[in-house]
């Protein structure tokens, strides 16, 4: 873990709410190794109402350019300010934080399900899995076509399936309605997105006996295990999402109880 100033090298709006922000370390030193599922804590400056840092997943690590990618959705003042950053701005990060998704021992068929901005960590995960020779399938869900982000990036690393609630892109309905869930066989499912979606995915995985990991977005104060605010009630008791998560095997969670 480090506290480090980065420089914003680009900030691209992907739709009316989501921005892809690429940053490089200000001192240009090589970044430490990072793993899919890990996140950063962003310091939000210039805001009268934002006091705490904001947690954001690692969307991609571009080693060639020493770039870190962040996919950020505007939901409140913190993410609003982050989405307003301009090229050249300094962004202070604590990183890398949290555990990471499990890479199964055996090369196998994986399904990465992301809903909304929950697709963010799936890109980095898919990339790593594909580099290691796994069969990678992405299932991305949104309300409407414009919610499906970074599709050309995803296509580099695996098959991409989509659902939209209004049917404007991919199949109509929720991710768990997609036909590949009926037609294809998967060995490992990863999911990140709104809780109802993740619960539905978890139910599916349990019903099929498939290993499944979910990435949680609990409210955090510190992000590195010091405050005990971000706990998730698990079969092992209250556990910190920021250090022992954000990735949990769904068997650990008490969601389906």
């Amino acid at each position: 873990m480090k506290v480090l100033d980065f420089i914003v090298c680009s900030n691209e709006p992907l739709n009316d709410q989501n921005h892809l922000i690429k940053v490089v370390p200000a001192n240009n030193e090589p970044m430490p190794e990072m793993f899919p599922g890990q996140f950063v804590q962003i310091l939000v400056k210039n805001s009268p109402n934002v006091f705490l840092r904001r947690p954001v997943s690692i969307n991609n690590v571009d080693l060639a350019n020493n770039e870190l990618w962040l996919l950020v959705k505007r939901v409140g003042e913190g993410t609003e300010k982050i989405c307003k950053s301009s090229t050249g701005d300094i962004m202070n990060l604590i990183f890398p934080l949290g555990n990471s998704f499990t890479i199964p021992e055996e090369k196998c068929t994986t399904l990465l399900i992301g809903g909304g901005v929950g697709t963010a960590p799936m890109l980095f995960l898919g990339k790593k899995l594909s580099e290691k020779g796994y069969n990678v399938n992405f299932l991305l869900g949104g309300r409407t076509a414009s919610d499906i982000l970074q599709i050309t990036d995803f296509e580099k690393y695996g098959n991409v399936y989509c659902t939209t609630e209004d049917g404007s892109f991919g199949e109509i309905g929720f991710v768990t309605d997609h036909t590949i869930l009926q037609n294809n066989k998967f060995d490992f499912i990863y999911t990140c997105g709104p809780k109802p979606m993740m619960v539905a995915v978890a139910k599916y995985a349990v019903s099929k006996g498939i290993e499944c990991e979910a990435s949680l977005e609990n409210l955090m104060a510190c992000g590195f295990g010091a405050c005990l605010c971000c706990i998730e009630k698990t079969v092992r008791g209250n556990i910190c999402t920021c250090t022992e998560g954000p990735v949990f095997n769904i068997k650990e969670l008490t969601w389906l109880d």
Partner: protein
Amino acid sequence: MAGLEVQIGDLKFKNPVTTASGTFGYGTEYKDFIDLGALGGIFVKGTTLEPRQGNDYPRMAETPSGMLNAVGLQNKGVDYFINHLYPEIKDYDTNIIVNVSGSTIEDYVTTAEKLADLDKMPAIELNISCPNVKEGGMSFGVSCESAAKVTRAVRDVFPKTLIVKLSPNVTSISEIALAVEGAGADSVSLVNTFLGMAIDIESKKPKLSTITGGLSGPCIKPIAVRMVWEVYNTVKIPIIGMGGISNWQDAIEFILAGSTAIQVGTYNFIDPTASVKIIEGIEEYLDRHRITSVTDLVGQMRI
């Protein structure tokens, strides 16, 4: 170069900057960020006799210049601390002080007794002011009698430096300070968090699972400084001041108001290196003002 050493009870601190209980884990959480040996001391997470799961999620809400928490003293209990955590941290080159909580006087006493046996544990901080537990906790800290009673009981079994942490949720914090001084405390630390709450207006639900929680951060600083000043004018034992300290300027303000040492709390979450920056800032201030020892600044507000 100005002298930064301060003394609380029998205990020497290499500098007045320590970190507040519940915001600094067991120190280890910060070892990637700073040299823990640079600190005057570390007040580790609130420890109770029995393990506690703490309160349900959500435990946190952001507020203007601060935050509410309702952690509820989640910890694995004093025995786990002694057997598993203490060995890991005892050799840090700084003062490690355990923050002790309980629901009954016996809880406090037994926990203190166990800690008294540890070689490298020179002091405890008695938390009679936690607003986040149903029983005990803050209730001890809001009356002079119960505050004095629990202090006296622990004093009788704990021969090392005894710091009592006061609640700000009282009409007169200086009366409570006087009571615990009379009961044998070597020092008082203040303030713990203010009881507050926040409501999500769309769901109409409280933002904390426990409805109310503890407010901390820069928002409370003006009240905390006032309380330090009041207590400084009332008791003779040294004060460890805290409440919203986020930079060296804040630290100097608490020292001028009467704090011999200070604790950095919530701000560690925003800048995990804040405490060491504060040490440097204090040093520069002292040099610039030609003050040879930080102790010469304690309570030296000009009136």
